[in-house]
């Protein structure tokens, strides 16, 4: 009886082998393809992140952006990596104006009345005039300004190196914090910058373009020029500067862009 119950293993015919392998491989292929498609639908339809310091991106994608940021900061960022500089002749005579958010012409603004406000601990406000800034050592930079949209332009800027500014106004303790926040006087445009990028030797608080004081549409009287970031971080018309250990709010990071936006 025992013997009779045993299945007799017959050698499969070639045709059977073919069918069997076709069935398995196409079955697995179909399941995996369906899974991949479902995975994609899930990601594509995934809800936006909860609006906070960053907003407007799919939640999983924001997580990926933040992780990728940390990865590239760790493996690649260095103060010694300088943006390429160019001879003066190569700088654009007409520097492109791409945006006026926070500095719209219809808004009343008198550069003569302007002071830069640095918010210190305990609500103390350091007020600095343009003349004071101009009395500090000037740094000039002719480099390829890069917009997140994909265009770039060689332009010529002059101003105070941010790290010189920190030293001169004895903000060294503040520079140990993780972030710098900058805002336009009307608070319409604002950026958050990680401290290593802010303290990069080519980051400048610029008051000149092509060796002349900034015109209003380029952010007079003072703007940020930070070559290690896309243009969206190069805030025009700086009103206030703050320091913090958490990410300051950032205009374009609220519109789905990477917070870091580093180059």
């Amino acid at each position, binding site marked *: 009886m025992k013997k009779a119950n045993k299945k007799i293993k017959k050698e499969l015919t070639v045709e059977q082998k073919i069918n069997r392998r076709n069935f398995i491989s196409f079955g697995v292929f179909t399941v*995996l*393809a369906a899974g991949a498609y479902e995975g994609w639908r899930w990601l594509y339809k995934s809800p936006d992140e909860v609006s906070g310091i960053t907003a407007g991106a799919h939640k999983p994608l*924001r997580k990926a952006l933040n992780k990728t940021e940390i990865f590239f900061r760790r493996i690649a960022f260095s103060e010694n990596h300088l943006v390429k500089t160019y001879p003066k002749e190569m700088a654009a005579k007409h520097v492109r104006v791409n945006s006026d958010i926070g500095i719209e012409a219809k808004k009343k603004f008198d550069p003569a009345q302007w002071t830069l406000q640095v918010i210190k601990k305990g609500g103390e406000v350091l007020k600095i005039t343009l003349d004071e800034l101009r009395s500090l050592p000037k740094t000039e930079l002719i480099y390829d300004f*890069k917009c*997140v949209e994909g265009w770039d332009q060689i332009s010529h800027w002059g101003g105070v190196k941010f790290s010189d500014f920190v030293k001169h106004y004895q903000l060294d303790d503040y520079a140990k914090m993780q972030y710098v926040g900058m805002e336009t006087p009307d608070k319409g445009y604002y950026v958050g910058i990680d401290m290593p990028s802010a303290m990069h030797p080519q980051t400048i608080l610029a008051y000149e373009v092509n060796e002349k004081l900034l015109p209003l549409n380029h952010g007079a009287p003072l703007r940020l020029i930070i070559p*290690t970031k896309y243009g969206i971080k190069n805030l025009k018309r700086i009103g206030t500067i703050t320091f913090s250990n958490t990410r300051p709010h950032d205009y*374009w990071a609220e519109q*789905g862009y990477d917070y870091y936006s*580093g180059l």
Partner: protein
Amino acid sequence: MKVIKEKHSLAMRWCHWVNFPILTIMIWSGMLIYWANDIYSITIFGHTFVRFFPDWFYKTLGIPQRLAEGMAFHFLFMWFFTLNGILYVLYTLFSGEWRELVPKRNSFKEAWLVLLHDLHIRKTAPPQNKYNAAQRIAYTAIIIMGFGSVITGLAIYKPVQFYYLTWICGGYHFARILHFALTIGYVLFFVIHVVQVFLAGWNNFRSVISGFEVVKEEPVPAIQTVREDEKGE
């Protein structure tokens, strides 16, 4: 008599089919990014032959005003694209498959004969192993192109931190052009590839999913007799 002949390894099939959707997503998200500064065209003596891309093209694919979204997708799927590519290259190296893939010295000459044969201009194709000369060139070129996409991509992604890559790629502008041109290359590759797969037929297509081909072999008698008149050869 039908015989099962193993053709493609599981690793090769995996990498191939994983790459297909990832590359599609990379091209799509790349277009969302490119749209924001769509300055490329093929212009010769002032006449524009192709503009990348016409408005109807963008509209049909729903591309405009999605730069941030495009970047977010691109910078996630770049990881999968790169890792899958590395996996494939490591596999071909360690398995010895590369011997079947890398063009041989005569491949460039032979590829013309393959082309002429495929276009029905020439009757016979040169003898081949797993891949013919044209395939060797195409499948090696596509890997080099993938490598090029990663390098040019990094060069425009972090041009300050990876300044040496940007320099190797001929600067920021040229790196962006290369990155774009490589993508156009993938699309052309895809078109030719699909036509060829279609022409090659079911047996060939199946082998990239199930791994084997079915070949007809004449049964060979155990003892072969040689006739007198064949001896002299």
